[in-house]
């Protein structure tokens, strides 16, 4: 199946998004036969990342800013057989719609969320987001961002996500592998992608120097959280932080019965 579309890609040359797109397409190609591309649905938010829906030849919903997790949840509740992969931005996910992200993780919706975490609002031309470093000079923080960034992996661990990973587009093979595993995971899987934004927050060199691969996925939540907090500017772990089996929300709440009919129900109300 051809995964490219005819849409012209309009990301800046050198943007980390190209590698995310590439890795995702690779991953889809390498997935086991059980995961059929026809049964995949891509959901994206609004931001530079959001355009990705136009570049992948799969069913997709290019939704609105901040609501990717809710759209994924609705789709999974409507048809639990679909493989749903969301793409969202850091502003999208950790600012505008953080509440949805936290609850999708809590519910353990069986879907994958890939966050294009460029630590800046790209499409709106460079404001600080919830993951921008303290001191970041953006258009709304010309004197420097006064806030510390969220520890996104720790947030997801505490929220209850059952698959939590981080990856770097500079290593497409590794990113591909993580995406594959996330999609194969049954439950809510979250990938924090350290995406360089060449225009507003060019972190290629910085990450190239500082990322290292997690050797073994921690076996307890406690250790996973510790690992999440072990990041330093010169040592940033990428890989899978945590993975756990748990019943999915859809399995628990979907009503499969067809019902007894309105006529009969009305009789019960006499």
């Amino acid at each position, binding site marked *: 199946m051809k995964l490219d*579309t005819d849409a012209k890609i309009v990301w800046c040359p050198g943007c980390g998004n190209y590698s995310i797109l590439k890795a995702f397409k690779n991953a889809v190609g390498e997935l086991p036969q059980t995961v059929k591309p026809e049964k995949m649905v891509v959901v994206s938010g609004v931001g530079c990342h959001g355009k990705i829906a136009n570049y992948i030849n799969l069913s997709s919903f290019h939704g609105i800013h901040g609501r990717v997790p809710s*759209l994924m949840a*609705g789709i999974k509740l409507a*048809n639990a057989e679909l493989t749903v992969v969301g793409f969202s931005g850091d502003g999208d996910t950790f600012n505008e719609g953080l509440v949805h992200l936290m609850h999708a993780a809590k519910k353990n919706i069986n879907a994958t969320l890939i966050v294009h975490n460029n630590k800046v609002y790209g499409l709106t031309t460079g404001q600080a987001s919830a993951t921008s470093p303290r001191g970041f000079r953006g258009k709304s923080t010309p004197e420097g961002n006064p806030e510390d960034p969220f520890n996104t992996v720790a947030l997801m661990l505490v929220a209850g996500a059952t698959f939590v990973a981080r990856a770097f587009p500079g290593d497409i093979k590794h990113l591909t592998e993580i995406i594959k595993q996330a999609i194969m995971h049954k439950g809510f899987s979250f990938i924090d992608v350290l995406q360089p934004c060449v225009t507003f927050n060019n972190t290629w060199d910085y990450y190239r120097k500082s990322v290292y691969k997690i050797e073994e996925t921690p076996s307890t939540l406690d250790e996973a959280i510790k690992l999440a907090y072990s990041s330093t500017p010169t040592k940033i772990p990428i890989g899978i932080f945590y993975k756990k089996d748990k019943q999915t929300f859809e399995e628990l709440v979907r009503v499969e019965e067809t019902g007894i009919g309105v006529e009969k129900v009305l009789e019960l109300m006499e």
Partner: protein
Amino acid sequence: MDFSFIISGMAGDGIKSTSMVAGKMFSRLGYYVFIDNEYQSLIRGGHNFSIVRVSDKKIWGHRRRSELLIALQDYTISPHNEYVDRVIFDSSGFDYPEGEGIPMTAFAKEVGAPTGFRNAAAIGALCYMYGVDIGNLNKIYKDAFGDKAEKDILLAEKGYKYASENLKQMEKVQRAGNPKPILDGNQASGLGAVKAGLKDYYAYPMTPASSLLHFLASMKRKLGVTVVQPENEISVAIMAIGSAFIGRRAMIGTSGGGFALMHEAISLAGMAEMPILCLESQRGAPSTGLPTYNAQEDLKFVLHAGHGEFPRIVASPGDTEDAYYLGGELLNLSWKYQSPAILLTDRYLSENLATCDIDVDRVTEEPLPLYSGDNSDYRRYSMTESGVSPLAFPPDAMVNATGNEHDEYGFTIDTEKESTEMYAKRMRKEEGIREDVKKMDAVRVFGNGTNVLFTWGSTTGVAVEAASEIGDIKVVQIRYLSPFPDWEIEKLEIDKAVTVECNYTGQLRSLLKEHGRINSKLIGNWGGRQFSIEQLAEKLKEAFE
């Protein structure tokens, strides 16, 4: 036959369930029953009351005048005193010399039940007073509570016996027909939607929409509906759009404050052409307002929900049956035209209980405009004359939906010509909707003459009864508010026009001015209460003088 009685007490006294049992006593004998439940936004204490009205003819609202008050708390007597003939009270709780006491609390103690059960004794007494066989009452308890009904039944019998020894009977009530279902407007709308194919219901609790959430949750397996309470209203609306994208009919419910949070999603539904049906039940506003009281203040707010232009279908039911029909009609229209639809109702209709004669099969699940072409070249937004693009859903076809302006395939565009055309395609759907609504009851007309009283929502029922008391008034309920039925308005011969609605500015009146060039007099009310029939009759007399 047409009488009312009131049951009053505090929150926690079970006024609502008591009045429901009392109502069923009569509805199962074939009577029409209407129960107005008034309560405050608190969980224990305060003053709650239900007015139970019983008649052998179809009834639509409450009368303030009642023949009986059953008071479980002393301070709940005086607010009703001037409207009632007799007062029955819990004589082991307090004293009220002018009333007729029943030692309800003492009875509860005797049977080893918590005080909260004592209302069963009152119902037992009522049963005697109206000459109803106590076996009927006991069956109601059993149907409702199964084995747990034992104490209620014991208490009801004690109340019955005590009344038979101490209290004067009222006019006796005979069986008048077959049992009737008794339900609230929200439940009716939910059932109408289920009949039209509802599969997913999403809602965040909010009075007065919550009764639908509770009803569907408790009946989900009997109705075949998945019921989910997401983290907030934004998620509610977006999840429903997710369902719609996959082809599952979804519905959501909320009140004004929650609906305010859904505007962005409504606009997305407009652009992405996703059908969603939202029940918006109005309560006193703005903001948190009067959270448990009635209002009709959100009409224009709802008509213009969501930024930008797109077809919005809005209708408001006038009574419980109507709530059922509109639940079905709107879900069908929403899907046929792939546009958001809003069922705009209000506290009075949403929560009050009424017996009803629903013609269940008047609602059907209408077929969708399905795509039948080659799945490998499916265009979600194919350009058509009607504006309606044939539907397919994943995984049957590759479907691309979006909130951005787009080409036929659903990919983002921003060129002037293509944007202009796609926008017009969406807007053209309004013509089809209009033609369809023309074939439905866009308005309902009651009575004759050239004195015309315009209504919408639950005020309709009260107005019909009040008008019929006065005579010579034609009540016109505007059922569809968008598209606005100007074609019906044009047909009317009007001498004097009055609009009645539970708001301050006269929102329907202003629509009539815009669309129908009708200048009408406004009877408004904005204190959180629906008019009683007597009250409105008074005002109509003045207005049409």
